[in-house]
């Protein structure tokens, strides 16, 4: 490892700390520095304490987890598909999750129990993943990545039709809440959701980190990967499955947040190169920081109105990515 990945790693750790601080410190309800310190020390007004410790802090941690998960899943999919355009939702995950969520919203069950909406979204994502794998596996005993990609697109299109049908039969407020859900928000965060998402993302993330070398090999082609000692079919199945689960757990609680899983791995790859042993952990860190800051923007830009976080990730992500791309092409 050269100096550069280490430098980037140190900067990203510092950025994570700064993002956690900023995401907790700032929001639509302003606090003075003294008030904020008092709250952290265990004092302050009970309502203020609630704002900071029960609303903002879990929200920040959910952002870290989901951002890290999406970026990891994106990096894994890009390596497996050898396709720079791959992203965490590529296997129809977002379509399935959105269909599940929209059905619950249309049935008016979203408020009934707090776990109905994320539960339905997660179930929808799982159905989509199972369908995509099933279609691809029935076409060819070996999992052909091109077939997998195609069946992801087809299953996604099917769920888009389901969503369109449900929305066409729904009233205006339902349509609005469905659209808002599909553009993503961290507003549902609580310590309980943080716990659930962490239970999925952390072990799955550690597992994917251990697959870094096989992923390096997969990104130079499956035949060569075999000759360099990779069990290609096993690696594909397990890496797809685990990365899909991470994405599904995230999307269930925060909706469909685009761009994180696509641009973060690219941005990090431009900075530190393609070795997944470096790329995966740093993408996870960068994804977390990016999502926490995007959420801060979503909460404060038009406060007290909160805008969908997907808007911020796209507005900030696209120009930032173009800048990085231009720099790397000039170098």
């Amino acid at each position, binding site marked *: 490892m050269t100096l550069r990945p280490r430098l980037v790693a140190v900067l990203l750790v510092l950025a994570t700390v700064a993002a956690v601080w900023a995401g907790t410190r700032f929001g639509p309800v302003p606090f003075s520095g003294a008030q904020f310190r008092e709250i952290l020390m265990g004092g302050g007004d009970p309502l203020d304490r609630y704002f900071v410790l029960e609303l903002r802090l879990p929200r920040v941690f959910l952002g870290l987890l989901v951002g890290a998960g999406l970026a990891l899943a994106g990096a894994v999919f*890009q390596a497996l598909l*050898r396709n720079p355009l791959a992203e965490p939702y590529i296997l129809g995950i977002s379509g399935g999750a959105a269909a599940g969520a929209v059905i619950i919203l249309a049935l008016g069950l979203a408020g009934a129990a707090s776990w109905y909406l994320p539960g339905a979204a997660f179930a929808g994502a799982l159905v989509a993943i199972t369908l995509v794998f099933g279609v691809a596996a029935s076409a060819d005993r070996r999992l052909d990545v091109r077939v997998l990609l195609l069946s992801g697109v087809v299953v996604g299109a099917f769920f888009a039709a389901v969503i369109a049908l449900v929305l066409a039969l729904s009233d205006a407020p339902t349509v609005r809440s469905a659209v808002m859900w599909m553009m993503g928000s961290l507003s549902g965060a609580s310590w309980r959701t943080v716990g659930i998402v962490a239970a999925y993302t952390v072990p799955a993330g550690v597992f994917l980190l251990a697959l870094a070398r096989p992923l*390096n090999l997969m*990104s130079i*082609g499956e035949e060569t990967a075999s*000759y360099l*000692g*990779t069990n290609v079919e096993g690696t594909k199945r397990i890496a797809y499955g685990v990365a899909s689960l991470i994405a599904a757990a995230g999307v269930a609680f925060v909706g469909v947040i685009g761009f994180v899983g696509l641009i973060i791995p690219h941005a990090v790859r431009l900075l530190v190169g393609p*070795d997944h042993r470096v790329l995966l952990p740093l993408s996870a860190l960068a994804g977390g920081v990016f999502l926490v800051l995007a959420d801060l923007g979503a909460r404060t830009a038009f406060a007290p109105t909160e805008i969908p976080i997907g808007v911020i990730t796209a507005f900030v992500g696209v120009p930032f990515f173009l800048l990085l791309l231009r720099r790397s092409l000039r170098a």
Partner: protein
Amino acid sequence: MRIEGESLTVTYPGAGDPALDTVSLRVEPGTLYAVLGPNGSGKSTLMRALLGTVPLRSGAVRLGDRPLGDWRRRELARSVGAVTQHEPTAFPIRVRELVAMGRYPHLGPLRPETPRDREIIREALVQCDVERMADRDVSTLSGGEHQRVRIARALAQEPKALVLDEPTASLDIRHEMEILQLLRKSADRGMTVLLITHHLDLAARFADRILVLGCGRVAAEGTPTEVFREEILEAVYGWPVEVRIDEITGAPRVIPRS
């Protein structure tokens, strides 16, 4: 390590005729074994069949003293290095990183490179004359340079056997000669080398034995002088040829007639 295939038959899905039809071969340790044949005669399929990346319809492969099925992929990669014809480069990667992947089978998923690994990588880079481009991005290399880098990666595996699919196809004469001499020397030191090539004259000059494939079947097998007969080569390649003994090398040479 001995490489043995017994009546290997491979049929690709959707294709009528088998790509490989009851092909048997036996490559002894310490020999340079060349596989020749026209385009589409099953040479690359033979490589995949021997290394277990294409399912066999029938037949059996033995590597060393064990059937192919008994080898785990990582264990196999510590004994056999393979260079395919093409390799996609989806993402930018440096030459040194690509060659370092040859150490993966020894390191497994987690162990970091030791100084010894780095020395092996450096030696492989030197042997293939790519050391001075170690920090360059692979996508900036010429076709021949990329091929040499991939041969270097196979050498970094420290294999007992090497299987190479047209490794000198886009090399200039100097680098082609260097690679063939390297393969010859490796065979002389006891390595098993299986070389798929279109370069008949160099195969005749460097190989101990030659297998000629035509339409997925064995058309001829033997020493270069046994195999390089006009009627054999004309039948396989579908073009009139003349075989002469080269005065300088003493090996048979094939001259296509016009």
